[in-house]
């Protein structure tokens, strides 16, 4: 875990410094495009994190392994934060470039739906006391919601949108100049490691919480006996 933390901090510092100070200006947007170094990694992570939750939930349903459910549960708030960050930075970027903070196009709307899916998933865990039952219902929410992931990714290809099509993951190679692409890729790596680091901490704390609860119940029972 300290190793993950180290990689996160290093790549974050290198990626952001490179992106914000060294990378050249864009020919159309000048320095304003630099928000891409936060916007794209957080958007990517908002999808990746939900995908992780969906896979963990499927494992939880099929093999009934509690660690799978706990991993999915621990990932949800991290993904929700990434989604908020993606929507927020996108909105800040949209105003000067497009001329609007928000538009109900397919990409923006499906990303907003993703945020509500995260909220719904977390609400299920909060609302149901019985852990096994909560895990099952939450896993179904995660899996049903996963249908939204390809919609977000391909929304810009399937429909007319204001949002531009993919720049990195597309056929024919990335359409970002290498001088801008490299720091962006480092930022994406940094966000990934951030996710892993926080996820591990969260899973650990959930397990410890569970043990504390178990001990407390035992203590009360022993008191009753004595």
């Amino acid at each position, binding site marked *: 875990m300290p190793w993950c933390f180290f990689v996160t901090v290093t790549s974050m510092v290198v990626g952001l410094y490179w992106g914000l100070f060294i990378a050249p200006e864009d020919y159309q947007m000048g320095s304003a495009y630099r928000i891409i170094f936060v916007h794209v990694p957080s958007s990517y992570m908002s999808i990746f994190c939900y995908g992780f939750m969906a896979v963990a939930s499927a494992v939880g349903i099929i093999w009934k392994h509690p660690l799978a459910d706990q991993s999915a549960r621990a990932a949800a708030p991290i993904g929700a934060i990434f989604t908020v960050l993606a929507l927020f930075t996108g909105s800040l970027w949209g105003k*000067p470039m497009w001329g609007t903070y928000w*538009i109900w196009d397919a990409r923006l709307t499906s990303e907003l739906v993703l945020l509500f899916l995260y909220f719904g998933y977390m609400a299920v865990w909060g609302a149901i006391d019985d852990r096994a039952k909560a895990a099952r219902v939450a896993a179904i929410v995660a899996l049903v919601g996963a249908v939204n992931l390809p919609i977000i990714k391909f929304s810009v290809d399937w429909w007319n949108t204001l949002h531009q099509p993919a720049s990195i993951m597309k056929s024919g190679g990335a359409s970002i100049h290498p001088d801008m692409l490299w720091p962006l890729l480092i930022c994406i790596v940094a966000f990934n490691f951030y996710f892993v680091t926080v996820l591990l901490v969260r899973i650990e704390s959930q397990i410890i919480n569970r043990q504390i609860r178990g001990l407390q119940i035992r203590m009360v029972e022993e008191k009753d006996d004595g």
Partner: protein
Amino acid sequence: MANTRAGKRKTKRFYLLLTSMTILLLAVGLVLTALQDSISLFLDPSDLAESNLSDGQRVRLGGLVVEESFFKDEDGLTYRFDITDGNETVKVIYKGSLPDLFREGQGVVVEGEINNSGPFFATEVLAKHDENYMPKEVIESLKKRGVFQYSDGEENI
């Protein structure tokens, strides 16, 4: 694994999950295909020409601003430009402020009411950005060598 009772249940759960996800995907796919037109943000000039929309209906129209079609009226607030999708061209008149990225050759989305008898009066103009990011210096050297061209239009609209 599949021989034990627990193993059988796992296999059953796996197939149940696979089937339900497939059905769900198909259902959502069908709904989205059916809603195709209403999900799209804007019409192309060609769509507009084919459609039988009546005057006064609000629509969004998207296309590239035609090179050398952009004019500013004497009042300094009213802009005139043509937008095209390669086949059809629509004349647009707009009074208001334009976004930073607005320029000839660039994709735009304009919102306004259908006017079958004349130009399209836009109440809002949004600029589209394409998926290309390039340093200024690279563009300048490409321009010097005469090989630079703005987005080719067809793909980005």
